[in-house]
């Protein structure tokens, strides 16, 4: 944690030694969002003739208001950050180990891989692999129980959605076993 709170007056913002880079990053993202809305209004919406006219035809009217509101709030937040008054969330204060941080990152990669592989491999093979990877990542042992739970959970979820709810789950394009 890069921030050391000096006082803890309930849920009020706290004075910290150094503002975490993430705070600046999120503030920059919100400023970018406000500017992006203005760019869209001055660009595509103006080009299509949708950024002028009366209240019905002016599609840029409300977005402009909201973008200005965001930029105004960003200015206030900037003042808070410059005064080093920051609200430290429970999540920020949550103590974690480097090992668990890496686990979280690896789980995100597994999730990306699953969403990427789902249309290619199909629901059943991709889901068993996804669950097994996560179980092992989260230290599930013995491995045979992890495999069994991954297969059973996939079959149950697949049955509920395919048979009971009539959802067509991704079939896959590689001709693997379990693909429709």
């Amino acid at each position, binding site marked *: 944690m890069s921030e050391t709170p000096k006082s803890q007056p309930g849920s009020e913002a706290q004075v910290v030694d150094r503002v975490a880079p993430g705070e600046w990053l999120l503030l920059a993202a919100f400023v970018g969002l406000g500017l992006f809305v203005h760019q869209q209004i001055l660009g595509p919406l103006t080009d299509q003739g949708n950024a002028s006219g009366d209240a019905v035809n002016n599609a840029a009217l409300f977005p402009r208001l909201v973008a200005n509101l*965001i930029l105004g709030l960003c200015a206030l937040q900037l003042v808070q950050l410059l005064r080093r008054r920051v609200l430290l969330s429970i999540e920020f204060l949550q103590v974690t180990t480097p090992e668990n941080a890496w686990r979280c990152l690896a789980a995100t990669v597994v999730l990306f891989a699953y969403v990427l592989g789902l249309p290619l491999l199909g629901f059943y093979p991709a889901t068993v692999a996804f669950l097994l990877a*996560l*179980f092992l990542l989260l230290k*599930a042992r013995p491995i045979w129980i992890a495999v069994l739970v991954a297969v059973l959970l996939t079959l149950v979820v697949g049955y509920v959605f395919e048979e009971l709810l009539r*959802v067509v789950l991704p079939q896959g394009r590689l001709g693997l076993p379990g693909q429709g």
Partner: protein
Amino acid sequence: MFDILLSGLDSFQSWQVIGGVILGTVIGMVVGVLPGLGPLIGIILMLPLTFHMEPVAGMGMLMSIFVAGSCGGAISAIVLRIPGTPLAAATLLDGYPMAKNGRAADAIGLAIASSALAGVLGGIVMILGAPALAAVATNFGPPEYFALAITGLLSISVVSNESTIKGLMTGALGVLIAMVGSDPLSNAARFTFGTNALSGGIHIVAIIVGLFALSEAAFQILEGGFRKKPDVQSVRVSMGSLWMALRHWKNLLRSSTIGVFFGALPGASGIIASFTAYAIARSKPLPGDAPFGEGAEGGVVATESANNAACGGAMIPTLALAIPGDAATAVLLGALLLLGLVPGPQMFSLSGDAVGGIFLAFLVSNVVLFFVGMLMTPLFVRVLKVRKQYLVPAVLLLSIVGVYSVQSRVDDLWVMVVFGVLGFGLRRYGYPLAPIVIGLILGPIAEGSYRRTLLFSDNGPWFILERPIATTILAIDLLVLIVAFTPPSLRRRALGWFRRSA
């Protein structure tokens, strides 16, 4: 009251509705029992399923999760001294000492019976209050709707524990996300980058599941303790708990009233209600009961009746004015929209039968809660033994398949993942997520009302000031904002000055 219930009887009388309520109650208890999940995550996980159900059945299931999830947290609070949800934080003050004194079954039985009784009372107030409030608002025009939408957007951002500025920023973010796609008035494409994929907007289910469920899974992994398996004894609850709860009927009525009041206030919640009810009950102990803090039955009755009655209270502004009080009711509001019902005063006139069915489902869910709780408590206690290493991947899988099932589109999964990463970042740095959901739902209402107001007033926004109700609501909003932005030291000085003057 009876008219609206009778009109809803038809849509209520189906196996899908009854099944949805029972399933919702069981799921609600499970997510309530498991620390880290809670009713909000339960509602979000089951939200995609409602797409495949009738509106009353879908809402019945989600509201049952809301009701049972608010009660389930008491079981882990009593058995483990770990509240399953923040709502049960006050329950452990006397519930855990009762368990330590060998009365775990009594404590759980009391918690379930009090929750069910208070839930019914809260439901009755909701059935009386929501249509009355909606009737007042029936004559509202665009300026009043605009003012109400602004109130809804401000309420959670300003009143919640998080930073007001950050809450307003995420609320505005939600409004902007809702604008992606076709403009509802002029049909112009906005923020679509010229792609067809975004012309219909971004699906709210993918956004909500990503923001809440995925970010929660990430924080659960960061917390560790994957193989922890608490050592809990089996607990059987008896039906006699109902009489035990009724012995505290004054406490139950008083705490339910407190619960409904705090539940109906946007931004306040069942947590405040349960601590307030506990504090008052403590000053009025029942003769013969154990001292408070050492296993008093009255403590469990007060906290559990308050937090479940708050569910009914919270539904009053949500249904009648489309102003949700917290994240869970915001998602329920979103579910209403997804099921084809337009929340707010018109819903009571346009879809009266569906509203009646939803009211009945709410009442019945509290009755079902009692029986499910009595019969299935041993199972819910066993659920506590599920290890996080299996639970987190299972929650992730349900989230993914649920989002996919809504439109059978892998694109939605990418939306979910992107919002999951965003939700993680926002939560970590103290940006509340609930205002995003409110912004998503109330943004289009605010925009449509604002532009219609301008149209009626020849493009002058000051027309709003000629409408007394809209002006009053906006003046209150402004006052709330001024108070929220006043530095705490100045607020304390002003309060001191007022006290001295008084």
